[in-house]
């Protein structure tokens, strides 16, 4: 048996983020947002500091599968230091990628998130990959309302 099919999903870079998550932890200031995937029990807690429309810092804690935690790690890594507008554009890009839509990356700095492209071939796992991004969008929403 070969691992080819699985390798599409679990590329080395994903497993690296799972094993050595970036930005794992909490922040004492800023905003905190918790989100879960009720169908499977995955849970993520996101901590964001947004100042002057820029994501100054981002951390996460959570329990979940390799895909959801790797995605959270990649997301925090890529949006840190970006403007809110760019962060939302990245989220849109990621969402389109999961849906298999061809999208122009529009000069966006994608970091490692393209490694998750393979998830689109595993429809049951798309929700795992998008959990952190949805939490991020909601956090920015909340910041807007404050």
């Amino acid at each position: 048996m070969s691992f080819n099919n699985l390798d599409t999903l679990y590329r080395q870079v994903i497993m690296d983020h799972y094993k050595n998550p970036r930005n794992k932890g909490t922040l004492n200031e800023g905003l905190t947002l918790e989100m879960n995937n009720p169908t499977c029990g995955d849970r993520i807690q996101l901590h964001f500091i947004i100042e002057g429309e820029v994501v100054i810092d981002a951390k996460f804690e959570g329990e979940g599968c390799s895909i959801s935690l790797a995605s959270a790690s990649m997301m925090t890594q890529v949006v840190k230091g970006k403007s809110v507008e760019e962060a939302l554009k990245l989220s849109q890009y990621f969402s389109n990628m999961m849906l298999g839509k061809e999208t122009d990356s529009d000069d966006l700095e994608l970091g490692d998130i393209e490694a998750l492209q393979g998830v689109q071939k595993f429809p049951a796992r798309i929700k795992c990959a998008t959990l952190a991004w949805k939490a991020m969008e909601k956090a920015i929403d909340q910041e807007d309302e404050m």
Partner: protein
Amino acid sequence: MTPLDVKQDFPILTQTVNNHPLVYLDSAATAQKPQMVIDAIETYYKYDNANVHRGVHTLGQRATDAYEGARETVQQFINAPHSKEIIFTRGTTQAINIVARSYSEKFIQPGDEIVLTPMEHHSNLLPWQQVAKRTGALLKFIPLEKDGTLSETAVKQTITDKTKLVAITHVSNVLGTINPIKEITTYAHEMGAVVLVDGAQAVPHMKVDVQALDCDFYAFSGHKMCGPTGIGVLYGKKQWLNQMDPVEYGGEMIDFVELTDATWKELPWKFEGGTPIIAGAVGLQAAIKYLENIGLDKITAHEKMLTDYAMEQLKQLDGVDIYGPTERCGLITFNLKDVHPHDTATVLDSYGVAVRAGHHCCQPLMKWLNVTATARASFYLYNTIEDVDRFIDGLKQAKEFFGDVF
């Protein structure tokens, strides 16, 4: 014993998934359907379909006979005293909700206690949370032993003369625990409480006799026992059902209707408002006949053989946590060390092996087990020793795949 050899009766099981012959180990979520059940539903729609209990035409009579015939089949299957004590519902969830609504409204007072267990499926927990909120009753939980069973002491300490109702699962969909329902109903009745049993995971796998259990209510679903989705059963003792009011009002369930008031039919129809699930009942009847032709005892023995074999194989793998007691129904809930159950399930799926991963609609039980999620393999009459071998091979692949990474 000779293992059952019935896979060929199930068309869906002959396909390949991800280039491997399908091994379906998720029957605790829903069971596959034999050709006989699919044919019965098709025949009903092709030749007999009409609305029931109305009109005088031939098809109307045939449909009514089919629907009421199915009720009698169910009655005999669970040995209920009367067919009018069999109410067709959408499934276990609706059956439990009918009792939670209707029985509670009549009989539960503020300060009364409702006794449950921490191993209940959400469908036998949330309705009672709502009853407690509406009526001011209190929820109490029989604490579990370390292996996920209920001790006689715990049962007797939790059920008291304040208990009005005990709602308990017959078989846990996570732990596989088979609860001592007969002993619990005997004690609950001594304390003056009624007992509702969630039989969703029991009826498909073992002979259930509601008179022997002496429970007051028993709920189960068709789709977990080779029948179609959308049909289930509420059995209730007529002494209770007669006193309970309908939950849904409308067509079909009425007796006389005036502009400002109405009366309704007697049992069981007063609980079956609207056009009933006729084809579903026909499919459920076919499923019961299919299971009875094979024999429930043989099915129980076959599943035990598969479960024992799978347990033996699992114990030979390193780093497998298994949840639940030694004496169990035909399912195994487990986790591989350092591998999230979703990832385990994805690897298995890539080898054509379908298992469940998640919280199994039992979030409080996951908390009790101190895990966020687990994987579960559940067996049914169509599974084989080869299926278990494929499952174990898949787990070895998962360990190897993730082991390389860590």
